[in-house]
């Protein structure tokens, strides 16, 4: 082959450009705020996280997981061997054969990528991504041929000028995509950013079967600083590792496919949102975005830069307020990107700095601030619902086995039916319990999701102060939102009120009672039943089994919906979405009811008063909606005395 020097020279050039690109990209991320991350430990843990945590998610799509293993694995191995064989010129037939084998593996993988892209689903981005499989094929072919002489298959110097030119062309193309493009913003950027994102992820405790879903508190001292900003106004207000996370997106659209707001035609698409964040951190416009738009909005008008206010040009605030914080996107994302945190970070700025919580948002927040409940009821009327229940108050008894956290359901007539049912069950099982009565406050969930972290923190610290006065070993609540706050978000406030306390959702607790035999149930005979997983119980807290076991203990065979368990579709009630009420084409609750209907169920069991309210808000005729506590109470076997 002629031009002996040419190909090593090209490889060096590509690698040097790649390093320059990497430095530039890293500097874009470093423009973000500092975050306490152990860099070394993160890097060490990264391969493990790739093989377990990330792979577990990719594995849900068998086709893609195999394809990616072949392509990605083949490429990484090939890249190392190319450097050894073609750059360092190590003359070893074994290495050359190994390189050809790994290139062949990569080639086969790329063929499958190619095949998937022949008729791509709408969730996948097109544009440069359509080029990627061809680039992969070019890369694999070119180096395969280039390696033939080294492997001794062809004599050195085979081929004329023409072959050399063709090969050179392919090599430039392949390396341009795979080395240069990796750090200069091409589709392969995902490999570079993705690996580092796994290492320096903002939620380190997400890995190794962890479940980190609680939002991080805002540093409120910024409120007293001149020039301080609460929440995220500009891309550089994100933590640097959040910016890095955005860059890891592969535009697979798995998030888009499960997003209830997108399906409802509200102006939100989590994939586009993440891509807009990338536009923001790098500066520019979204003109090159080749995926689905925010419903009802055109692509191409968004402009942003690292130091420009996001909601002035890059994002419409309505996009942020459409999210129900259901975490379906986070659950599906193969790159483990944290959409919800980013959305709430930006909402924090809108609420705490701009005072722009839409629709009823401002009123609800004002009510929570003034009365500790979202509807502005007199705080002293919190226990009115239980006037006939004779509930022991913590203030009187000081100590109980179980603290029943009543939640704001206390003010709502429909929710009170659930509360009564649960109290009856506890009484039937002779549980030693007490309530806080008027000392209980709103848990802060809605305030926090609406971006008012100041109010959340105020509620949390006051609730913790009350809790710390009493002794109990369990807190049980019928409200998954309160459950999530108490269990995962109250830990950040330096209180030991919940140390050693088990926080339980009522379905987990009732399930314990039933399994212990403390509750005797008759079998259920009311027709077909399905179960709707509340987001804050399932995806946020991993409790999928207890409610199902409870239903089964009444002899119910659950007719599962297609989207159930970790794939459950939101009812539309989370994240303050019913309060901000961003218009779409359909209502999320209606779509969920269609899911229910397609199982043919006559009754949908839920474990959340918010879900109950949302699903019951669907016009009749529709299946009945009941909390599991209500179903149980009807099946309670009366003891004969």
């Amino acid at each position, binding site marked *: 082959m002629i031009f002996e020097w040419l190909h090593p020279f090209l490889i060096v050039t590509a690698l040097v450009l790649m390093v320059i690109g990497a430095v530039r990209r890293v500097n874009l991320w470093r423009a973000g705020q500092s975050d306490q991350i152990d860099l070394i430990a993160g890097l060490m843990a990264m391969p493990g996280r790739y093989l377990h945590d990330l792979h577990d998610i990719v594995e849900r799509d068998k086709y893609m997981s195999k394809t990616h293993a072949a392509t990605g694995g083949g490429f990484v191995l090939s890249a190392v061997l190319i450097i050894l064989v073609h750059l360092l010129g190590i003359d070893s037939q074994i290495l050359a054969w190994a390189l050809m084998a790994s290139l062949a593996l990569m080639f086969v993988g790329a063929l499958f990528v190619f095949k998937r892209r022949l008729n791509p689903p709408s969730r996948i981005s097109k544009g440069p991504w359509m080029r990627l499989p061809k680039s992969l094929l070019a890369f694999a072919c070119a180096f395969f041929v280039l390696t033939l002489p080294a492997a001794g298959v062809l004599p050195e110097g085979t081929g004329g000028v023409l072959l050399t030119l063709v090969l050179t062309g392919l090599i430039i193309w392949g390396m341009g995509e795979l080395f240069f493009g990796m750090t200069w913003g091409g589709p392969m950027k995902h490999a570079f950013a993705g690996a580092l994102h796994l290492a320096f992820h903002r939620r380190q405790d997400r890995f190794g079967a962890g479940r980190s879903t609680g939002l991080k508190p805002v540093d409120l001292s910024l409120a007293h600083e001149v020039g301080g900003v*609460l929440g995220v106004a500009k891309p550089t207000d994100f933590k640097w590792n959040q910016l890095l996370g955005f860059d890891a997106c592969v535009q697979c659209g798995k998030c888009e496919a499960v997003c209830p707001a997108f399906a409802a035609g509200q102006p939100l698409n989590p994939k586009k949102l993440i891509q807009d964040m990338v536009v923001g951190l790098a500066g520019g416009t979204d003109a090159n975005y080749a995926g689905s738009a925010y419903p009802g909005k055109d692509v191409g008008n968004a402009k942003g830069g690292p130091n420009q206010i996001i909601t002035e040009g890059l994002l419409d605030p309505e996009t942020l307020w459409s999210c129900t914080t259901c975490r379906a996107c986070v659950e599906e994302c193969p790159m483990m990107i944290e959409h919800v945190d980013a959305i709430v970070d930006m909402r924090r700025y809108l*609420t705490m*700095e701009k005072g722009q919580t839409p629709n009823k948002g401002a009123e609800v927040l004002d009510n929570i601030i003034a009365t500790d409940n979202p509807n502005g009821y007199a705080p002293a009327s919190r226990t009115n619902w239980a006037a006939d229940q004779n509930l022991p108050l913590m203030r009187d008894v000081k100590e109980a086995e179980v603290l029943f956290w009543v939640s704001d359901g206390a003010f709502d007539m429909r929710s009170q039916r659930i509360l009564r049912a649960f109290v009856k069950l506890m009484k039937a099982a002779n549980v030693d319990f007490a309530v806080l009565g008027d000392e209980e406050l709103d848990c802060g969930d809605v305030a926090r999701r609406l971006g008012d972290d100041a109010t959340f923190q105020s509620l949390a610290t006051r609730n913790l102060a009350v809790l710390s006065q009493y002794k109990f070993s369990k807190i049980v609540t019928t409200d998954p939102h309160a459950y999530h706050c108490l269990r995962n978000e109250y830990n950040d406030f330096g209180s030991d009120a919940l140390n050693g306390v088990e926080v339980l959702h009522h379905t987990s607790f009732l399930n314990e009672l039933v399994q212990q035999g403390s509750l005797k149930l008759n079998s259920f005979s009311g027709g077909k039943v399905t179960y709707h997983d509340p987001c804050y119980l399932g995806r946020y807290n991993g409790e999928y089994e207890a409610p199902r076991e409870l239903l089964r203990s009444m002899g119910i065979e659950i007719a599962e919906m297609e989207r159930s368990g970790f794939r459950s579709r939101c009812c539309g009630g989370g994240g303050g979405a019913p309060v901000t009420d961003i218009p779409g084409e359909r209502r999320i609750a209606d779509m969920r009811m269609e899911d229910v209907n397609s199982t043919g169920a006559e009754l949908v069991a839920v474990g959340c008063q918010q879900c109950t309210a949302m699903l019951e808000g669907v016009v009749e005729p529709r299946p009945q909606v009941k909390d599991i506590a209500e179903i149980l109470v009807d099946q309670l076997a009366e003891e004969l005395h």
Partner: protein
Amino acid sequence: MQPKQSIAATGNNLKIVSLISVGKHPQSGRVRRADQDSRAVELGMKLLDSGNPTGGDSLVVLHAGDPKEPGLRGYAGMGLNSVQVLELDPAADAVAPLGEYLQQFAPDIVLTGVRAEGGESSGMVPYQLAEKLGWPIVPRVADIISVEAGVAEVLQALPRGQRRSLKIRLPFIASIDSAAQDARQSAYGPASRAMMDIEIVDSSTDQLRENWSEAPAKKRPKRLKVIKAKTAAERFKAATAKSQSEGGKVMQNESAAEQAQAIFDLLLEEGVLR
């Protein structure tokens, strides 16, 4: 919007003052920004926004009392850079120092709530200030439509959503009705960051008030109405209508002396004057 043009066109360097007090939430009794006062601030901000874009107009949000009072932060969170506070004992009489301040500052429009949400809640402050300054007072204002050539066009709120349009020469005091535009959301960041411009003023303790004891206000009992409605529409009207005073007469063309005499007679008749 109409006010935008009319106010902008004249560029009248308007000086607006919104008076604020510490509010009390009706259900929880917790300190907050008072509802009507925050509408007064909102209206002040609206006049400012719609005014001369090159500036010239100014809004001072003024409180007499304790500058550390957290209730004031709720107003600041509407986006104010500062709140002017005349520091005095909250129990002291605020009218005298407010009057002096206003006399010196000489604003064009003073906006207040109709009545405070705590304390005496007599609704007298705007009247006393008007008396002290010798300015007209327009009670229960819903909106200020325009200010042109020293004259403001004001909408007064009447029962059942009715409005009365008035033209008032500057300067004047307006008390803002609950029918005025809702106050914008108060945001935590600006609320915490705003400056309190403090001026310590002399004040005299309200001697009379010292001996009073405070109790939550109760709604006055209503006179029972005998409803003789025959149709649903009449019943609805009877149930929703605010009782309008009956009797009385409108005296428009009589001389001032005659009008005064009529009022005097009425007060005697009602036993207000003896």
